[in-house]
């Protein structure tokens, strides 16, 4: 009766559609795609998967072999236009470094320098412990999935129900605030042309030339999501660094950009 969700294989989804056909110019190990490219939780996870697939012990890691496979995978992700986190590239660089070291003639390694291959193996081992732990945790009975709390209706209670500390205006404010939250959930393609910090700086400067102060949220466009926040933040920091604006935070956590008077109409 346990609705265990963990054993379900996921079909890779590309732009919301199940991915069925493969690019023909690339060799993909069988099962690779079913094994949910998208659901690797990070480069360590991908690397562990590759090592497991070869059925080798982490300790016997063959870096050259793994590096090639790893790079194939991230190329595949690239072709499939997965948003590739920088960490995947960092890992590729680490692997490449280890591989190139191994190809160089052995020189006396400096004592205090840690062998990057050993460092990687240690990290992988440590990661694997927690990965296994998380898999164990995922199948533990969980409320609302594997078991439910019993509840009943209360009888009429003669009691002084304390006055609500909230009123209908709070409802409006809260709902409004929810609607105004930038959409942090939607995925996006990184497109550096689309949002430029430089451009955002110009826009903010132009706004500040008309009014003295502006709240940070007013420098956001909801449609730009997370990226928009980043760009606006970078722009604000840049402006603050150059002494054009002062960043003020009030009790409501909202950040304001206050012109320091050096904003001209350029």
């Amino acid at each position, binding site marked *: 009766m346990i609705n265990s969700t963990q054993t379900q294989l996921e079909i890779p989804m590309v732009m919301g559609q199940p991915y069925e056909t493969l690019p023909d110019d690339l060799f993909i190990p069988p099962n690779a795609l079913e094994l949910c490219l998208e659901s690797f939780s990070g480069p360590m996870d991908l690397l562990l998967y590759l090592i497991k697939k070869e059925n080798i012990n982490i300790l016997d890691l063959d870096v050259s072999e793994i590096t090639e496979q790893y790079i194939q995978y991230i190329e595949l992700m690239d072709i499939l236009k997965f948003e590739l986190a920088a960490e995947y590239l960092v890992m590729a660089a680490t692997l490449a470094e280890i591989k190139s070291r191994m190809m160089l003639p052995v020189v006396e390694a400096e004592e205090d320098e840690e062998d990057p291959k050993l460092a990687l193996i240690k990290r992988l081992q440590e990661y694997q412990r927690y990965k296994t732990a998380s898999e164990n945790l995922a199948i533990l009975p969980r409320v609302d999935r594997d078991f439910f709390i019993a509840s009943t209706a209360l009888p009429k209670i003669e009691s002084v*129900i304390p006055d609500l500390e909230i009123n209908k205006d709070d409802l409006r404010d809260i709902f409004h605030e*929810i609607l105004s939250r930038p959409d942090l959930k939607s995925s996006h393609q990184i497109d550096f042309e689309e949002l430029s910090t430089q451009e955002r700086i110009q826009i903010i400067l132009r706004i500040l030339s008309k009014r003295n102060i502006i709240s940070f949220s007013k420098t*956001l466009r909801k449609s730009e999501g997370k990226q928009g926040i980043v760009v606006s933040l970078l722009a604000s920091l840049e402006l603050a660094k150059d002494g054009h604006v002062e960043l003020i935070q009030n009790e409501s956590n909202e950040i304001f950009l206050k012109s320091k008077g050096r904003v001209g109409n350029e």
Partner: protein
Amino acid sequence: MSSNLTTNTIEALLFGAGRPLRLSEIRSLLENNGIYEDLPSIKISINAIEERYENTSLEIKEVSSGYRLQIKESFSSCLSNLWNEKTPRISKALMETISIIAYKQPVTRGDIEDIRGVHVGTSSIRALLERDWIKVSGFRDVPGRPALYVTTRQFLDDFNMKNISSLPELPEPIDHSSEAFLSEVI
């Protein structure tokens, strides 16, 4: 005749729902679970549950929207201690959920999750049902037939409103105005 399994399944549904269930609803929930019973048999099971709770703190009650399990009236004084001791503080998460239901009703739990962008636990929905601020108004005609929630008369009373149109008007959504704002200066 309904078996003990059927009776227990019905009991589990009543304890799990957090709201009254109609006989017909119970029937279709049982069907989803491979148990086929007609309404009279379900009623018999409900009578069996009634007997089961005779010497306990619970009773089964028929209200306008169906059957529900509730704590017997005689225990209300000890519960009032429990409720008065802790002022019913309303968490931020609960406030967000009720405000979404108020402004966008009828909504499903999934709708609320989409808007809030985080998981909405059954406990929040239950807390609102228990407070009698929301009720199920129907089911959306999509797979899974998720329940649609609307606010209740009690909700209006507690917030001093005559009807739902007394809800304060929303300001123009921020993004529109700021979109205009940004484009205006560009």
